[in-house]
C-alpha cells in the first residue's frame, strides 16, 4: 500500500504515537525523557515516532495506544459534521497514520472510521476546490489534513489554469462598468 519513495508516507511515519513498553529496555534512556538512568522501565509510557513504534510492536516489545485524535470525542464530532472538523491541528497525516495503525491496534472500527471521514469531507473538498477564489488561500485549507490538501490543490490548480487560459490575450473583453468603483449610496 505504501511506496518506499513516497515522501508523504515517510513524513506520516514521523508522527509521534504513545507506546507502552512491555519489557524493560536497557541503554535506550534517550527515548524516555523521564528516565533517570539510561534504561526504559517496563510499563513506561513514551511518545515515539510511528516508524519506531511499529517495529517495537512487531517485536512484541510495546503496546501502541490509539492517539487522541482517534478517540470517541473526535468520532462523535466527525459524525455531527465531517466538513467542519479541524484535522490539520490534530494530525496533519490523519489518514496515513490511521491506515498504518489499523494492523497495530485492536480497534476494529478504525478503518471504517477513516473511510467515513473521507467520504464525509470529500464532497466539501470537491465543491470548494473548483469554486475557490484564484488569488487568496481559502479558509477551508486550514482544517484539511495533508492528504486532503493534495486533493484540494489538484482540483484548484487545474481550474485556475483553465481560467487563466480562458482570460489570456485579447480573448475576454472587460465591460467598462466592471472596473469602476461603486459610489456609496449616500452620495447619489
Amino acid at each position, binding site marked *: 500500500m505504501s511506496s518506499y519513495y513516497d515522501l508523504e508516507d515517510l513524513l506520516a511515519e514521523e508522527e509521534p504515537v504513545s507506546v507502552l513498553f512491555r519489557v524493560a529496555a536497557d541503554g535506550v534512556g534517550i527515548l524516555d525523557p523521564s528516565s533517570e538512568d539510561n534504561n526504559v522501565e517496563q510499563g513506561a509510557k513514551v511518545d515515539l515516532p510511528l516508524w519506531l513504534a511499529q517495529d517495537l510492536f512487531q517485536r512484541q516489545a510495546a503496546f501502541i495506544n490509539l492517539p487522541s485524535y482517534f478517540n470517541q470525542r473526535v468520532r462523535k464530532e466527525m459524525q455531527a459534521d465531517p466538513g467542519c472538523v479541524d484535522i490539520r491541528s490534530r494530525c496533519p497525516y490523519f489518514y496515513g497514520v490511521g491506515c498504518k495503525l489499523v494492523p497495530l491496534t485492536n480497534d*476494529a472500527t478504525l*478503518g*471504517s472510521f477513516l473511510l467515513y471521514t473521507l467520504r464525509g469531507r470529500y464532497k466539501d473538498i470537491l465543491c470548494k*476546490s473548483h469554486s475557490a477564489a484564484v488569488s487568496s488561500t481559502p479558509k477551508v485549507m486550514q482544517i484539511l489534513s495533508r492528504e486532503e490538501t493534495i486533493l484540494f490543490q*489538484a482540483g484548484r490548480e487545474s*481550474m485556475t489554469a483553465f481560467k487563466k487560459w480562458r482570460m489570456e490575450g485579447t480573448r475576454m473583453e472587460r465591460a467598462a462598468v466592471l472596473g469602476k468603483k461603486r459610489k456609496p449610496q449616500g452620495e447619489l
Partner: protein
Amino acid sequence: MAGQSNPQLSIFTAAEVEFLAEDEQIDIVPNVRMDTLHMICGDYGPFRPQIPVRVPLWLAIALKKRSKCRIQPPDWMSVEKLTQVLEDEREAPREFQPLPFHYVEISRLLFDHARDDITDPYLVRSLLEDIRDVRFHKVESGLETLSGKTHAVKLKNLAAMEVNIVRPFIVRALQCFYKHDNEDLIKQAANELDSQPVASDRVPRRTLRPR
C-alpha cells in the same frame, strides 16, 4: 507529450490541449489562387478563390492571419444549434449532449482569430459559455456520488478541455477511496460492527452518467 509541464500529474496544460485541437478540420473559402500544399500530414488544396476547401485549423488560422481566406464556422457554432444544445443540456440533467471533442478550444481559437467570420459573435459566445457552465456543473454533481466502491468513472460525450480540468482531481480522489476501501482496513469491522456488507459486493465500475 502528456504531462510535459507537470510530470507528476500527467496532465496536459490548457495550451497543450489547444495545440491538439488545431488538427481538427475546418472549411475555408480562400481568396487567393494557390497550388496544393504538400504537408507531412497530408496534401491540402488546390486553393481557388471562392471555392471552399477543407484544411486543418492551424492552416486555416495561418491563412486567415495573412487575410488569404475566410473561415466558415462549423455547423454546431450557429445560434440555432447552440440554443438547441443548451436547452437539451438543461433538460437532461444526467447526460451530456454530443458536441465536438474540442469544442471549447475550437470556438476559442475562432473567436481569437476569425471573429469577423462568425455571425452574431456575442450571442454565440455567451451561449457557449452557458453550455460550458451547465456541463461543468453536471460533472461536479456527478463527482459528488463518488464513494469507496467506485473504481472507474464513465463520462460519455465529455469534451477534451472538460476532462482535462477534472482529471487530476478525479485521479486523486479515486486513489484515496481505493486506498481507504481496502479490505484489509475494513474487514475486521465488517463482521462485528455493522451488519451491512461493507467490502464484499464490489461493483467494478460506476456509470456516472447513463447512456
